[in-house]
C-alpha cells in the first residue's frame, strides 16, 4: 500500500508556555525520540484553529498532535479549556470524515514534563504506523484526475482559489 520505509509524519501544535518549553527541556536533557514530528509554536493551545488541524491532514500529515498546559495551569487562565471543548467536537466530526481516532491527539504536557513529550511522540508514532499513510495530498491529486482539467489539489491551501487565472477568451 505504501513503500516499505514509509514513516508517519506528524504536525504538532505546541503552546509556547508549557509544551514547547517541555520540548526544549527534552532537548536540553538530550532525551531521544522519533524524528517524525514537526512542531509549530503558538502562544496558546487556544490559538489552534480546527482549520489548522484539517489543513495539516489535507496537506499530507498522517497525524496531528496538540500540546497544551494542564487544565488550571494555562498561562492565559483558560485557553486550554477552549481547546478541550473544541477537541471533543472535532473528534466526533473527524470520525464522520472517516479519520481514525488515533490520528489527532490532544495532550496536556507541563513545562517540566520533558520526558512526557518524548513518550507521547514515540507512542503516537507507533500507534500511527499500523494505520498506514493518510497521504491526502496525493489522494486529492488522484481523485482530481476524475474531472478533465480538474482544479489542482484541494482548496485548503488557498492558492488554488486566489490565483485562478480566468481562462478568458
Amino acid at each position, binding site marked *: 500500500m505504501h513503500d516499505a520505509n514509509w514513516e508517519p509524519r506528524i504536525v504538532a501544535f505546541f503552546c509556547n508556555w508549557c509544551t514547547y518549553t517541555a520540548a*526544549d527541556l527534552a532537548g536540553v536533557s538530550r532525551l531521544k525520540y522519533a524524528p517524525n514530528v514537526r*512542531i509549530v509554536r*503558538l*502562544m496558546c493551545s*487556544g*490559538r489552534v484553529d480546527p482549520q489548522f488541524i484539517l489543513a495539516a491532514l489535507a496537506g499530507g500529515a498522517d497525524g496531528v498532535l496538540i500540546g497544551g498546559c494542564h487544565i488550571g495551569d494555562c498561562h492565559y487562565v483558560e485557553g486550554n479549556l477552549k481547546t478541550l471543548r473544541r477537541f471533543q467536537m472535532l473528534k466526533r466530526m473527524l470520525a464522520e470524515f472517516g479519520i481514525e481516532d488515533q490520528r489527532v491527539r490532544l495532550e496536556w504536557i507541563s513545562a517540566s514534563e520533558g520526558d512526557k513529550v518524548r513518550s507521547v511522540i514515540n507512542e503516537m508514532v507507533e500507534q500511527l504506523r499500523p494505520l498506514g499513510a493518510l497521504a491526502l*495530498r496525493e489522494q486529492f491529486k488522484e481523485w482530481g484526475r476524475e474531472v478533465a482539467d480538474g482544479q489542482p489539489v484541494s482548496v485548503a491551501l488557498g492558492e488554488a482559489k486566489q490565483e485562478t487565472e480566468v481562462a478568458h477568451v
Partner: protein
Amino acid sequence: MKTNLTNGDIRIGFYICHCGHNIGGVVDCTAVAHEITGLPGVVVSRDYKYMCSDPGQELIRNDIREHALNRIVVASCSPLLHEHTFRNAVEAGGLNRYFFQMVNIREHDSWVHTDHAKATTKAVALARAAVLRVRFHRALETTRVAIHPDVLVVGGGISGIHAALTLANAGKKVYLVERDPSIGGHMAKFDKTFPTLDCAACILTPKMSAVRANKNIKLWTYSEVAKVDGYVGNYTVTVRRKPRYVNEELCIGCQECIEACVFKEGKYPDEFNVGLSKRKPIYIPFPQAVPQVVVIDPERCLQLKSGRCKKTCVEACADRQAIDFTQKEEMAEIKVGNIIVATGFKLFDAKRIPQYGYGLYPNVVTSIELERLVTSSGPTGGEIIMRDGRTPQSVAFVLCVGSRDFRTNRWCSRTCCMHSMKLAQLVREHTGADVTVFYLDIRAPGKGCEEFYDKSLKDGIQFVRGRVAEVTDWALTPEEEGKLVIRAEDTLAGVVRRIPVDMIVLAVGMEPQADSQAVRRLFNMSCGSEGWFLEKHPKLAPVSTFTDGVFIAGCCQGPKDIPDSIAQAGAAAAEAMALIDRGYIEQEPNTAYVVEEDCSGCKSCLPLCPYTAITLDGTTQKATINAALCKGCGTCVAACPSGSIRQHLFEDDEIFSEIEGVLTHA
C-alpha cells in the same frame, strides 16, 4: 485583504547555525542551506558555526545591506533562548525586527534525534516552513507597558526581608506580606548559623528592625495574598488581612496583657518553639518579633470563642486601649508593578519514617526542635535536656531524613549536613556528650564549610558512614538498657553496628510548602515535578519566572542555605528594579485586533477573554480589543466565526504557510 506577495518584493536571507557540534554534529547544515536556496524569495542561504556570536550577527547585518534583504530566517536553537538576540541583529541591520523568523533545529531536532539523515530532512522541512512563513510577516512595533514603581514581596523570611530592604533602600515602595504574626521565617528560630557560628538573632534582628523602621516598606503581617489580577507592570493584588484583635499602631509590645490573661500559664503548643513550650491565647510569637505586637488566637481565646471572659487583658491595656475584639478580616487591594515570591519551604515530617521512632520515643527530636532547645531564648533557656529533664550523655544525629530517598523526597536538601554539624558542635560545647553523626555523604561545599567539617572532627564528633536502619528501645546487652539503640551498617567498617544513645536528632530535609500548588496558580507560575517553583532557566535566569514581572527567591525555588537565599533575594530585587527604573516593559506585539469592517457584531468572542480585553463598541455595535489588556493568547482569533479577528505575529496565513512548509518537503 491579503498582502500581495508577488515574489519580486520578498528578498529572504536564510542562515543555519552549526552551534559548534550541537547542531552540526547531527544535521548536515550545508545540505540544508543548499536545499533552501531553491525556495522562492531566498536570496542568501548560508551556514555558519555560531550564528549567535557577534561575527554571526555581523553576517546578518552586512547581508541585509549588501543584498537588500527584507526578511531573515535563522535556523538554530530555541526562540525562547535567542529570538531576542537575532531580532536585535535584524534591527541593527536596518530592518523591522519582526521581519524575522526562527527555526528550532537544536532542542527540537539535533539534540533529540540520532538518525542524521532524518534529522537533516526534518531541519529542511522546518526551515522551509519558516521561509514560507516569513513572507507573510509585517512590520510591527513593540508596545510599551508602563511599570508601576511599587513592588510586592510575598513571604517575610530572610529572602523576603533582604529583597524588601534592598528595594526600599533604593527608594522603591514595597509591600511585604507575611502569613505569620511576625517576620523572620525559619532563620528566627536558629541559635547559631554555619559556618561562622555567629548568632542568628544578632544578624537577623537588625535587618528585621530595619524593615520596621524603613518608611518605604509597608509591612503586612498575619496577612495572605488572596487574588492577583493584571499583568507585568500592572498587577492588582488583593491581600486578606487576618484580624489580630490588637491595634498595631497602639500596641507597644509591653506584654502586660499577656500577664493579665485569665490563663495563668501557657496552655497551647507554641508554634514558634515547635511545640516544645506552651503559650497563652494572647501571645507574642518570640521576643524579637517584628512587629513587636501581641496577637490573640481566635480558636483559643475564651472571649472570641464564647464571648464570656472577664477580659482582664483589656483592663491591663487600660491606657493604650490597643486590644479590639471587634476587628474583622479585611481585604486590601494594592497596585504593584513587580512581585517577588519568597515563600520559603517546609520541613519533612519525620513521622513519615516510622523506623526512626519520631513521635514514638520522646527523646527522638528533629533538628529544628534541637535548635529551639539550644537557643538561649528558647523554652529551656539554652539547656539541652531530654524530656525527663536529664542532660544527654550521648547524642546521635541522623542525616538525610526524608531526603535522597525514592520513597519520600529524591533530592538532597543541601543544608542538613552543615546544619547538623553546627548543632553537633553546640551540643558538644553545651553538654560535653559524645556525639555521633550518621551520614551518607557529607556535603560541605560552601566557603568555610570544609574547614567547619574539620573542626567538627577535631571536636571529637564521631562520623559513621551509613544510613540508619532503625531506632528501637529493645536492648540486646545491658549497656543498651534504657537507651535508644540505633542499628546502622557502618559501610566503612563493613559491620552492622548497634549504638545506644540517649537522644537522637533527625536532620529533616526541606520540602515545598504544603500550599505551593495554590500559591503558584495565584501568580501564574509553574512548578517543577517535585513542587518547587520553576525558574525561567536553571542557570541563566534562576530568579525570574516565565511570567514577566514575577520573581522568585530563596528556598521556594529549591533547597539552599542562607547566603544563597540572600544572593537570590538581592538578584530578584535588582531585576525588579531594572524593570522599575526603565519604567516600561516592551510587550511582545502578538496581540489580537478586530478588522472593524469585517466584524458582524455577533459577540461570539466577548465571553472568551479572561482579561476582558474584548468589548462591544456601543456605537458601531462591533467588537473591539483593548491592546493593553490583550495578552496575545489568540483564543478569540481561532474562535471568530467570520475570521474578522487577527493576531499580530500569528496570522492565519503565517500559520497555514508554516503547515504547508513542514509538509511539502519529503
